[in-house]
């Protein structure tokens, strides 16, 4: 082993330590920003290490020119994108970046395969190398196209707006997955022959298709789960891309990302009371009829002026935000209302359900953007015991996460899902655009309860009007 090889591995080790420390700090509110910085330093060290490695050095000037150009272009694009994006566009952006990571890992594996075809000895042709190379393509491709579909759905592209159902999708997905695996087997049998080439092509194409068919049937409300899952996949793809070239820093950091994605996926599933398998494999049931259909009541509507009079007398208010707040971009107006309420001597809190919005922690990011201090952002578990003592719960664009059927209606598809107990508040305001049901199409008995009043209209306008009333 040359000195430079030792030195590179030493640098990879330092980089891995930075990643581990970075992720640890990222998990605490006070140190999170520093953690992100540490992990970016780790990334810088890892890149420097590979740039001075023997492999790249042997590539000569041509290699360095291509690498520097690609990094420069990617940096500019990534930087501008990150600076320009609106906070409301965050879920799409995370999905898209995640897709790029998956695409990159897939291309790395194909490029490693090309190296074998080109007669380089840097990549082996043994079974282990071949299997991990094939798996990198499989996982990377699914992460890539899956994230693209998730991005299209989150960005609200027209052709993806409606929930698409594929008849017999489990058979189709299983078939495509089997084809991809067969491709890997073909490749393993003869990595250096035409059979191997066919195998690589079959794996690549079927895996790209699998990402599409897997994600396209998943509805908007289940997005927090699927984004976390895709995040795990892109991490795993990076980890597997490290195996064929025996690169430990890829394996360690890719695996850390994979673990974090899996944990987030499980947390999100738990918050929705769904198993991950049921989300992927079951077809969503449309409009399950409620058992208590007999006592059908009309929701009571109220004007903004009347709502103001009740609000003025309130001593404690809890906001329950949902995806509708993001759509209406009402977070700044909500913060203003929050300020005038506090001036009025009222205690204001936010109860945030883990799956409110379209990605994990979506509501927290939006409200932080509007300068709501994070101590005021409470979880459902923290707020629920205080709900019966709350004067007014203001539900803004949330639906299923406040549906009491989850607690008391065993026939409801939501039954068993932990919710924000907004219905226990003395009065509940529901800000809603119209009389539709949520993404799941499930009736919400909260809307017709005696202590609930509906304030129809655009959430941002309604909240702004309330602020104006206060100022008068």
């Amino acid at each position: 082993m040359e000195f430079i090889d030792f030195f590179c591995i030493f640098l990879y080790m330092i980089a891995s330590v930075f990643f581990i420390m970075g992720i640890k700090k990222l998990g605490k509110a006070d140190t999170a920003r520093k953690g992100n910085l540490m992990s970016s330093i780790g990334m810088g060290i890892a890149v420097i290490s590979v740039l001075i490695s023997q492999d790249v050095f042997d590539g000569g000037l041509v290699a360095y020119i291509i690498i520097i150009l690609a990094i420069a272009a990617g940096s500019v694009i990534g930087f501008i994108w990150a600076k320009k994006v609106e906070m409301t566009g965050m879920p799409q952006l995370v999905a898209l970046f995640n897709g790029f990571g998956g695409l990159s890992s897939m291309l790395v594996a194909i490029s490693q395969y090309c190296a074998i075809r080109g007669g380089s000895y840097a990549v082996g042709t043994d079974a282990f190398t071949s299997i991990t190379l094939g798996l990198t393509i499989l996982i990377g491709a699914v992460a890539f196209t899956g994230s693209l579909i998730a991005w299209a759905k989150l960005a609200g592209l027209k052709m993806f707006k409606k929930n698409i159902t594929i008849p017999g999708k489990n058979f189709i997905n299983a078939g495509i997955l089997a084809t991809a695996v067969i491709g890997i087997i073909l490749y393993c049998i003869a990595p250096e022959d035409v059979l191997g080439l066919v195998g690589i092509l079959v794996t690549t194409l079927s895996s790209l298709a699998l990402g599409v068919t897997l994600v396209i049937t998943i509805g908007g409300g289940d997005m927090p789960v699927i984004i976390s899952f895709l995040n795990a996949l892109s991490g795993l793809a990076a980890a597997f891309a490290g195996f064929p070239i025996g690169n430990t820093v890829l394996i360690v950091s890719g695996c850390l990302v994979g673990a974090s994605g899996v944990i987030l996926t499980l947390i999100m599933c738990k918050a929705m009371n769904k198993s991950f398998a049921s989300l992927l494999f079951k077809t969503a049931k449309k409009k399950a009829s409620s058992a208590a259909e007999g006592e059908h009541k009309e929701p009571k509507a109220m004007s903004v002026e009347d709502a103001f009079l009740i609000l003025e007398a309130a001593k404690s208010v809890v906001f329950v935000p949902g995806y509708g707040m993001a759509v209406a971009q009402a977070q700044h107006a909500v913060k203003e209302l929050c300020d005038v309420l506090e001036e009025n001597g009222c205690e204001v809190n936010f109860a945030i359900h883990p799956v409110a919005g379209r990605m994990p922690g979506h509501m927290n990011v939006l409200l932080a953007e509007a300068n709501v201090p994070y101590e005021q952002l409470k979880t459902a578990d923290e707020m629920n015991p205080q709900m019966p003592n709350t004067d007014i719960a203001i539900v803004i664009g949330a639906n299923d996460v406040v549906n009491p059927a989850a607690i008391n209606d065993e026939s409801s598809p939501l039954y068993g899902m932990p919710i924000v107990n907004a219905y226990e508040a003395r009065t509940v305001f529901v800000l809603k655009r119209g009389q539709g049901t949520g993404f799941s199409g499930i009736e919400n008995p909260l809307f017709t309860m005696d202590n609930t009043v509906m304030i129809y209209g655009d959430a941002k306008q309604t909240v702004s009007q309330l602020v104006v009333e206060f100022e008068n």
Partner: protein
Amino acid sequence: MDGQTIMLLVFVFIIAAFLGVELISKVPSQLHTPLMSGTNAISGITIVGAIAACAINVDNHVLGMILGGIAILFATINVIGGYFVTDRMLAMFKKKEDKKK
């Protein structure tokens, strides 16, 4: 690849997985989005593999070199974009006292 190297790599993989689970299982829900986008940036570590793959193809395989170059481009967008957007988000998370200053 010889058996010893393979077992060592698998060993590293398993240990890293358990370490990841330990590190992340207690993250508060308000940090879920920054955690996701921060780890997403880390998954751009594949840039290291992309650089190596691009370089080893320079003398032997033009298509491999080009694919490697494209992989570097996308991995860099993932890395740089991911870190900056996470930092932007985290800069917004503030305590009550900080805001009044």
